[in-house]
Structures are given as structure tokens and as C-alpha cells.
């Protein structure tokens, strides 16, 4: 009963009272059976009192008993409150039976054993928890929910923008002199014309059309640099993002910012016009989130115009990442406000674009029917399942009854859908996981988004009930950009580089290492990750062992490699005795380093936590690293060893330091060095495995060989991928879920794509109560 009463104090509600009364009868019967008052037994413990009198309704660990008091005992009341509640209200039929010392004992037992949040956390069994959409899932779901009412775009291999050049300023068809595809828009026409054979010097105009691919989610600043007139549209071909048609004064760099979602393609158009200005030039540039301003590279431009993407601009509070991955198991007032604002934002945009979304002109004679139909489909897609007649009435049709302004009806229906838990939460089906739940689990796992039509149709036909069927769908879905985007999202979190804002280094020590090099490095790492993960073998070990990387001209010149012929990135070999895949990639080496010096501690922690999955306690006290000037003759290795010498430090640093030292051949920008402070580099290290054997290595390459073959690394990678993908504790899917997946991973020659498919397979069909998986029905 306690659980109900406490909950009632928080939120009220009629059904609670009714069910509380039912529990009271059972409590009374229990009390009668036990033969009288509880008082007067000085030696009895709280546990004994609980087991004797409370367990039948509340369960052995307060977990609740179905049909009695189903709610678990747990909450945030203080012990004093709990004592008072037991004293005054328990048992309900005769609260005087348990008062004073007895009430205190029972309450204390309940509190310490399972009621308090910490106790609950300790004893709770892992289970699939009801989760709201994470921020990433919300954004993607909305983009797909609205976007599916528009035509689809298909991304192929072609890159660059469709270009048309006109003599004269008017874009007149009969004055079109050149049609071609431009890889980038980065032109200095000077006093001449794009091609003097067909366009005389003087007035001319040009138009580029196509789409732009965004890799990461966030604010993109676009820039058009020109001394002439130009206009740029991005994602909205009606309203220009930048209107610099009027050239005025010395303003020649026009910028504007727009929020884009990663892994999606946005329509883009650029118009240019030269009138009487002496010279002509145009440069189309952007600054993606956490990146440098640069000409938009060819690989991000597409000659086809894609439909616009629906991007929510409302800011959401960050998701809870305390478990090591973003999950939606808690809500807050600020989340509630954000989802309300977002729903209003979306509803307004839907109404503003209703003609194109519903495919229905404002003066269509059957407009009402069409809008009702649109709302039905909108709700079905948002809820990821068909609507019952009752639901159609509740969510849609009621809003149209007696409503003169159809747009108001649409807005209300859309708002109600977007604020419904059926849209906002995953796994509200209770224990009965059905075909549509399976579809949602697959799509949210692989895409962080709604199921597409093919998946929903398979659900409708009951074709998702076997592991093989799920695997087939998963394989199909891996080819989608949304899967690529999600995998990249995971890899960035795995490498702890999702939120690197600044990689700047000491200018005098590392001249030339600027924002552009840092941005190139990130691009280079992404290309490397994509190259391996999306290759046929998708071999995890290659991530750690590959003896090549990707460079453009700038990186080649800074890091000393053969410069590529064009502006793009090319794959070049690295010395395999020294280098090891992403582990020695300069981006990570620079990320895990200080302003001037390498940081063996950061590098070591990255290996311990990120690769080996070992647990580290936080440092016992905050310690300022010893300054380089402390003893200028010491090498970094010597300095770190000296600072972490105390026994209190060594409990963890005995593991961290020797792993970090293995990277000492790489300085703070990831360049190879052979000596430091005139001493040759000592990159020897060691590691004691979880099972107690000691491994030694002579440097990064050695360490990488060990990691690539280590079961600890495999299990750690599998666990992290699992949690970022599924966003539920692995144990909720069975005690041996990770063992099983790790074994499958090894058996597939460490194929990352196969692992994703296997995760989808084993989780999609899991029942919520984890008693049984869904059998073929």
C-alpha cells in the first residue's frame, strides 16, 4: 500500500483510490491470519515484520504483486516520512496495529532494502525500460514523419552542382551559353568571363542547382563571397537564406546560419550576377559544426535537387548520458516544455505547408476529406502503427467536427499526435510486443527514426516474426544514409570525439597547425572510419591496425606525405611498424594531448575505458598536471611518472600510464618523433589483463596488435555499440546477451555490419518481460 499512497500524494487520480481500497482488504485479511497485533515483540526485526505482514501484497523485494499492489515500493520520500506513513496508515484497516517502534523498524527495513533510489538502483533487475525519444531520435523521427509526405530523393554516386551560365543578367533560356557540372563553386573570373568563346566579358549570370549533404547535426554557417550579386537558398527554395543580390559598399562576404541534421541531403540553389563591376568572382563556402570555414567540398554536393528536410529548431535539453550512452528513461520540466514548443513549431509549419504535404489545393472541393485523410496518415506514421476507429476519432476526426477553419482542425490534430506518448515514447505496448513494435525497434536501433514504408508493410503482413526476417530488413536498412549517420554518431561517441570544440595547439611549437588542419584531420578520420565500416569485410580489427590513412594537400604537406593531385582526399600508406589505424591517427593523438605536449594519461584513459572497457574510479583529488617548466629536463614520460608516483594515484595509474606511454612517439599534433628533450623516446608499456596475465609492448603498434586480438576489446566494443544502438541495458535482453553477441562478432571475422544486424535480430524480438522471446505466432 505504501507505494500507492506515496504516489497519490504526488499526483492524485481516481483509479489509485479504487485500487488502494482493494489492497486494503487483502491487508486486513493478512493481518487477521497472523493472529492479532504486531506490537509488543521487542526482538522482532523490521525484516521479520515485513516478511510476516507486507510481503503478500508488496512482494519479497517490494517489487509489487500483480492484482494486489502491483506498484513497486520505491520513491523519493525521506525515511521520516515513510515512518509516519506506516505509523498512521498501515495496515489500512487498522493503522493502530502498527505504530511506534514497529512502524519505525518496518519503514527502515523497506527504506534501506529497496525503497530509496540508491537501494532501488542496486537491486533493480535490468529490464527494457519505457523510454522517450532521445533528442537525436526526435529530430530524425520528425524529419521522416513530415518528409514522407514529399517525394523521395535517391542518392547516387554523382557529385557536384548543375551549373548554367548565361550571357546577360536575366537567366534567359535563350541566352544560356554553358551547361555543365561544377565540382565546387570557387571561381575567380577576373575581368573576363567563364568562357570567352561563348560569353563576352561584361555582364553575365550563372545558376547552380542541386543539393548539399550534411554529415553532422548542428548549425551550419553558409557564406557567399563575391564582389557581385548573388543569392543562396538552402533547404527552402522559396525564401533565400542569403540575399546579396544588391552588392553594396565593400561587403563581399555574406553569411547566414541554418540548422541541419546529419546524414541528410538538402536542396540548394545559388544565383550569381555580374553587372558593371570591374571583376567577377564567387566562392560558396560553409562552416559545419565543430569545423573550419572552407569551400563546400565536391563530395558534399549533389547535382539532383532533393526535397526539403523538416528540421526542428526548438532546443531540447541534452539526454541523460550517465550510463555511457544517451537514453530517454527520464523526463524533466525542460524536456516537457521543449517537446511542447517543438510540437507547436511543427504544427505551424505543417499548416503553413499543408497544400504540398496533403497534396490538396486551398480551393479543392474535397479539401476536408483530404485533410482528414492526411491527418490519419500523419498519426499512423507518428505512432508507427495503424489506428483503430476509436483512435481515428480521438486524434483526428473530432477536431474537424463543426470546425469552420480546416487549418485549425489540422493544427489541433497534429499537436495532439505530437504530444501523444504513442509518438514520444518507445515501448508503450507493455508486454505484448507485436509486429509493429518489432518494426519500430529495428528502425530506431539502426536509424534512430521511424520505420519506413517497406518495414511497416512487412509488419502488416506479419513478416517480421523470425530472426531471419529481421536480419533481412536490417541488411536492407544498413544501406540507407540514416544507418551511416547513426554508425558515425556511435563511432564519434566511442572515440569520445562527439563534442571536441577546440583542437588548437601552441603556435610557436607547431606552426601551421591551424583550424583548417584540425578540420581536415577530422574529415580524414571520418573517411577512414567510413572506408572500413562500409567495406565488405567491415573488419573491426582493421580500424585498429590499418597501415594507411587519408590526406589532402594540406595534411600531406603538414604531416609529410605524397600530396594528392587534386583538392580531395586520397588514401596513402603509413609505416606499419609505427602506425596503427585510428589509434595513431593525428586527430586522436592531438585530441588526447595538451597544448604543447602529449598526454600519456589522457591517451591511457582512452585505451583503458574506451577500448578495454575497464572501470576507473575518479581521481581521489583534483590534481593540476605538473607544468612543463617544473623541471625542463624531464621528458613527458618522466614527468607523468613523477607526478603519479604516490600510492593513492598508483591504484589506477599503474594501469593508465604504461598504456599511454605506448603512444609517446606521437607529439601533441600527432607527428612522429624519435626523441624528446634530447632523450630517445621510450614507448615501452605493459598491461595486466582482467584475468591477470601481463602483456608488454614496445610501442603503439604492439599495443594495437594486442588490442585487436584481445577479448576485452571485442567485448567492450560490442557493449558500447549495443548500448548506443539499443539504448537499453544489455542485461535486459538476457544475462548472456553480450556473450552471445561477442561470440557472433568473433565468428563473423569481426564484421561490424554483421554485428549491427545481429543486435537488431536479438533485440527486436525480445519480449518486454524478458521471460520469453516472441515465438512465431
Amino acid at each position: 500500500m505504501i507505494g500507492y499512497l506515496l504516489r497519490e500524494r504526488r499526483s492524485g487520480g481516481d483509479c489509485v483510490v479504487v485500487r488502494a481500497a482493494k489492497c486494503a482488504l487483502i491487508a486486513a485479511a493478512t493481518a487477521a491470519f497472523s493472529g492479532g497485533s504486531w506490537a509488543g515483540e521487542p526482538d522482532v526485526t523490521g525484516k521479520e515484520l515485513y516478511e510476516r505482514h507486507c510481503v503478500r501484497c508488496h512482494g519479497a523485494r517490494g517489487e509489487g504483486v500483480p492484482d494486489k499492489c502491483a506498484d513497486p515500493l520505491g520513491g523519493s520520500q525521506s525515511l521520516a516520512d515513510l515512518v509516519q506513513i506506516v505509523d498512521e496508515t498501515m495496515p489500512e484497516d487498522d493503522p493502530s496495529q502498527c505504530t511506534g517502534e514497529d512502524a519505525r523498524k518496518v519503514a527502515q527495513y523497506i527504506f534501506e532494502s529497496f525503497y530509496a533510489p540508491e537501494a532501488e538502483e542496486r537491486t533493480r533487475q535490468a529490464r527494457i525500460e519505457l523510454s522517450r525519444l532521445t533528442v537525436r531520435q526526435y529530430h530524425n523521427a520528425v524529419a521522416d514523419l513530415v518528409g514522407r509526405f514529399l517525394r523521395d530523393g535517391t542518392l547516387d554516386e554523382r557529385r557536384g552542382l548543375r551549373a548554367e551560365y548565361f550571357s546577360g543578367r536575366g537567366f534567359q533560356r535563350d541566352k544560356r551559353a554553358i551547361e555543365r557540372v561544377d565540382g565546387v563553386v570557387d571561381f575567380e573570373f577576373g575581368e573576363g568571363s567563364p568562357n570567352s568563346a561563348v560569353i563576352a566579358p561584361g555582364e553575365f549570370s550563372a545558376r547552380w542547382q542541386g543539393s548539399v549533404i550534411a554529415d553532422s547535426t548542428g548549425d551550419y554557417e553558409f557564406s557567399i563571397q563575391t564582389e557581385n550579386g548573388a543569392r543562396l537558398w538552402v533547404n527552402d527554395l522559396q525564401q533565400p537564406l542569403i540575399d546579396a543580390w544588391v552588392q553594396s559598399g565593400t561587403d563581399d562576404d555574406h553569411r547566414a546560419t541554418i540548422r541541419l541534421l546529419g546524414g541528410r541531403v538538402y536542396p540548394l540553389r545559388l544565383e550569381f550576377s555580374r553587372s558593371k563591376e570591374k571583376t567577377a568572382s564567387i566562392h560558396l563556402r560553409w562552416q559545419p559544426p565543430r569545423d573550419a570555414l572552407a569551400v563546400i567540398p565536391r563530395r558534399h554536393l549533389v547535382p539532383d535537387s532533393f526535397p526539403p528536410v523538416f528540421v526542428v529548431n526548438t532546443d531540447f535539453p541534452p539526454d541523460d548520458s550517465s550510463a555511457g550512452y544517451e537514453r530517454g528513461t527520464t523526463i524533466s520540466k525542460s524536456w516537457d516544455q521543449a517537446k511542447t514548443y517543438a510540437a507547436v513549431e511543427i504544427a505551424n509549419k505543417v499548416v503553413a505547408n499543408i497544400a504540398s504535404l496533403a497534396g490538396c489545393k486551398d480551393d479543392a472541393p474535397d479539401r476536408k476529406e483530404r485533410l482528414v485523410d492526411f491527418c490519419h496518415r500523419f498519426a499512423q506514421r507518428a505512432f508507427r502503427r495503424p489506428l483503430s476507429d476509436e483512435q481515428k476519432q480521438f486524434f483526428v476526426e473530432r477536431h474537424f467536427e463543426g470546425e469552420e477553419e480546416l487549418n485549425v482542425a489540422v493544427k489541433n490534430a497534429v499537436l495532439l499526435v505530437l504530444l501523444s506518448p504513442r509518438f514520444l515514447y518507445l515501448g508503450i505496448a507493455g508486454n505484448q510486443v507485436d509486429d509493429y513494435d518489432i518494426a519500430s525497434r529495428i528502425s530506431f536501433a539502426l536509424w534512430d527514426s521511424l520505420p519506413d514504408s517497406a518495414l511497416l508493410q512487412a509488419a502488416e503482413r506479419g513478416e517480421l516474426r523470425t530472426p531471419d526476417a529481421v536480419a533481412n530488413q536490417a541488411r536492407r536498412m544498413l544501406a540507407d544514409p540514416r544507418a551511416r549517420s547513426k554508425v558515425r554518431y556511435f563511432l564519434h561517441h566511442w572515440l569520445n570525439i562527439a563534442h571536441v570544440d577546440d583542437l588548437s595547439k601552441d603556435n610557436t611549437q607547431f606552426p601551421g597547425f591551424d583550424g583548417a588542419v584540425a578540420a581536415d584531420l577530422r574529415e580524414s578520420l571520418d573517411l577512414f572510419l567510413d572506408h572500413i565500416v562500409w567495406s565488405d569485410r567491415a573488419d573491426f580489427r582493421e580500424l585498429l591496425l590499418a597501415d594507411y590513412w587519408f590526406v589532402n594537400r594540406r595534411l600531406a604537406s603538414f604531416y609529410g606525405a605524397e600530396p594528392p593531385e587534386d583538392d580531395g582526399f586520397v588514401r596513402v600508406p603509413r609505416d606499419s611498424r609505427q602506425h596503427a589505424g585510428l589509434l595513431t591517427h593525428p586527430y586522436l593523438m592531438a585530441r588526447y594531448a595538451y597544448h604543447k605536449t602529449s598526454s600519456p594519461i589522457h591517451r591511457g584513459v582512452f585505451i583503458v575505458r574506451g577500448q578495454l572497457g575497464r572501470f576507473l574510479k575518479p581521481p581521489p583529488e583534483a590534481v593540476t598536471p605538473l607544468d612543463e617548466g617544473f623541471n625542463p629536463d624531464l621528458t613527458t614520460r618522466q614527468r607523468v611518472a613523477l607526478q603519479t608516483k604516490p600510492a593513492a594515484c598508483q591504484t589506477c595509474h599503474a594501469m593508465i600510464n604504461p598504456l599511454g606511454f605506448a603512444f609517446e612517439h606521437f607529439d601533441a599534433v600527432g607527428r612522429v618523433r624519435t626523441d624528446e628533450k634530447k632523450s630517445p623516446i621510450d614507448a615501452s608499456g605493459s598491461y595486466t589483463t582482467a584475468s591477470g596475465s601481463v602483456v608488454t609492448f614496445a610501442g603503439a603498434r604492439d599495443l594495437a596488435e594486442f588490442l585487436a586480438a584481445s577479448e576485452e576489446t571485442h567485448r567492450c566494443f560490442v557493449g558500447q555499440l549495443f548500448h548506443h544502438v539499443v539504448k537499453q541495458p544489455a542485461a535486459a535482453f538476457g544475462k548472456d546477451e553480450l556473450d552471445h553477441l561477442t561470440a557472433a562478432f568473433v565468428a563473423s571475422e569481426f564484421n561490424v555490419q554483421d554485428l549491427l544486424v545481429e543486435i537488431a535480430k536479438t533485440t527486436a524480438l525480445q519480449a518486454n518481460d524478458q521471460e520469453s522471446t516472441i515465438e512465431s505466432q
Partner: protein
Amino acid sequence: MRQKTRRAFMRDLGLSAAATPFVWGLAARGSEATAPRRQRLVILFSPNGVVPWNFWPKEVGEQFTLPEILTPLQPFQKRVLTLHGICNRVRGDGDSHMRGMSCLLTGIELFPGNIQGGSDTPAGWASGISIDHEIGSFLQGREETKTRFASLEFGVVVPPRADPWTRMVYAGPNKPIAPIDDPYQMLRKLYGRLQDQASLSAILDDVQEDLRKVRDVVSAADRRVLEENETFVRELELELRAASQDQTQRQAPELDGDVKNVNDNIPTLSRMQLDLLVNSFVNDFTRVATVQYTNSVGQARMRWLGIDEAHHELSHNADSDTASQEKLTRINQWFCQQLAYLLEKLASTPEPGGEGTLLDNTVVVWTNELGKGNSHTLDNIPFVLAGNGLGFRMGRSLKYDKVPHNRLWLAVAHAFGHRLETFGKPELCGGGPLHDLT
């Protein structure tokens, strides 16, 4: 709780327009108790010059007859001030229409640029801020005159292109501001959040019902999150209710259904915009507004006056073309009627929380980018002031001797307590604020 028609719902919800700040931060901001009297400025623009002999009073001083174009101002003659001899002396790049427009409220040259007019060298945007934004940001800088918007820019059928002929308001150098010529868009800007609140209020009961249904099918352990969610929704509902109960008498205007943004609807659109303007003053959303009819070189065809020709084309015809001059006189008289409509609304609306009417605390400046259409002169720019908001001595016809218009804007700024040394091009500010106004 079902939602009503837009009109009914605006009527109901306009009531809470000036309610205390709520989650959406909607209401006016100034504190009424301590504030000095509100002062307001409206600048009303019509294009293509006037017919001088039908526009300027012959007499100087308090005894003057309103010429034909100004006859609609008769009821307000005691509150009108005509200023002859004010000139736009800004030179530099751009043709007269461009400079007439983009230097009108800025008083400073255009940047060199790529826009070629009918003559002269090509030009870009104005190189300074316009007087409405200057005063608006001055008022925003003081707690007692702060409002929701620093200024509002209304338009009536402004062509959908951005160039120095279509922009007179500037937030700063190279920062032209587009007027909003769609009254529904302006309504959304002013009241959109109230509409959102209404929609939310209408469905929050349903959201809770839905949450309860779902709560019953999930496991006991998962119920906690949904209960928490319900609590938040209930809190939001209470906040919305509190906001709508905190009502004042201030109403949003009722807008007629779908009025298309086209030439023939100019009279209706004009009324709608002026109604919204007065309404935004009543609710103290702003103290500064501009109204731009079409654009410089505007081509309104006033068929409702029986005039089929386009305005700018007519304005090029010779003085001796009496038929054209008669039409231009009627066109300008129509603009003057719009001014009179605005004055009438202001004069019949009590000052909220204060004494007198809105017109007692407002000055409307009616102006134009040219003195005369066929000569394209920037001398004798039409400036007709009305209302008592700035402490000027009204009910007079004044004549000046080629005074730069910068000095008029200085005088207006000073009347707001904004004691600028110069405004726009400093060389044109000699002599300081325009004399003889008070």
C-alpha cells in the same frame, strides 16, 4: 474545449494580449506606474512625388487653407503641421528614386554597388541607420520605454524584391529591413503565440486522457515516467489558464478572411494594416512604426478611383497634361485619406492607462521619396505631420529655405529625449534640430 473560428478566437484571445508575461513572453514590457507619458512615432510613405500646387498650402502660419490633396485632413487641421522647404540633400551614387527612398529615413549616402538606376552611377544600400530604428533602439535602451518590438514595419503591396527602391528602413549600414505587407503575417507576428496558446489549451485535456490510457497498458515500473509526464502537462494547463484569466480590455483586431495580397485589394489591405498598427499601440507592443505603400517607383493602379494607369508612369507626365495631374491629385488624395483614417482611429482610441487619446501622444509623419514626380527633384520633399505626441506646435503651415531633412529627424529624435548631435550625414546637420517646430 473546441476551437472556434479564427475570428471568434481572436476576439476571445485578444483579451489576454497584454497579459502578464507567461511562458511565451508575449506581453508588453514597460512598467505603467512609473512611466512618463508614452510618445509614439509613425512614418507613412507614399511614392512618386506629389502635385505641388495641390499639396502645399499657400499661406504661412496658423491661418491656412488645406489644398485639394490635403482636404481629408480637415477634421484634424488644428493638429496638422505642413513643412515646405525640407530637402533631401544627400548626393552620391544612385538615381533620385533610389536616394529619395533609401536616404529618406537615413539621411546618408548609399554605398557604391551593382544596382543601376535610370541615370547616375550604380549604388547599393544606405550606409546608415534609419530614424525609426534609431529612435526605436533608443527607447529599448531605457527600462521605462522598453516594449516588445523596437519598431514595426508595415507595408501595403510591396513588390517581392529587395533593392534600394523597395527599402527605406535600415537597422544599420547595409542592413535593409523588409516591410511586412501581408496582414496575416503581421497578425502572426503580433499574436501568433496567442494562437498557439489557444491551440494548446484546446487539446491539453485530450493529451492527458491519452496519457492515462497509455499508462494503463504499460508495466507498473514504467508508469512512473508517464505519471510525471502527466504532471508536467497539468502544470502547463494551469499556466495557460492563468494567462488567459489575466485579461485586459485590449482586443486584437478582427481580420477578414482571405484577402489576397494584390493591387485591387490595396484599400482593404491598407485598412487592415492600419488597424493592426493602432492595435499594437493599444497593447504597447511598440512605440515606433512605419507604413510603406508600394515602393519608390510604385506602380499601384487605383482602379477603385477609376484610374487604370500605373502610378509611376502617370507621375512622369508633364505639368501641362492636366488630365494626368488631376489623376495624380486624386491618387495623392487617396493616400491622404489613409492618413486621415489612421488619425481618426488614433483620435478615437483612449490612451490606455493614461489621459486623452492615442493621437495626443503620437505623431504621424507622411512623406514621399520625391518632391515632384516628373522632375525627380529631392527638394521640397512632402512632410506633413499630424498629432500631438512630440510637443510640436501644430495647426500651422511652415515654409523653410532649403533645409536638409536631416535636421527634421534630429528634431524628432530630440522630441523623444534622444539628444543626438547629428543624424545621418553630419555635414547636413548644421544648425541642429529644425527650428520653429515648438
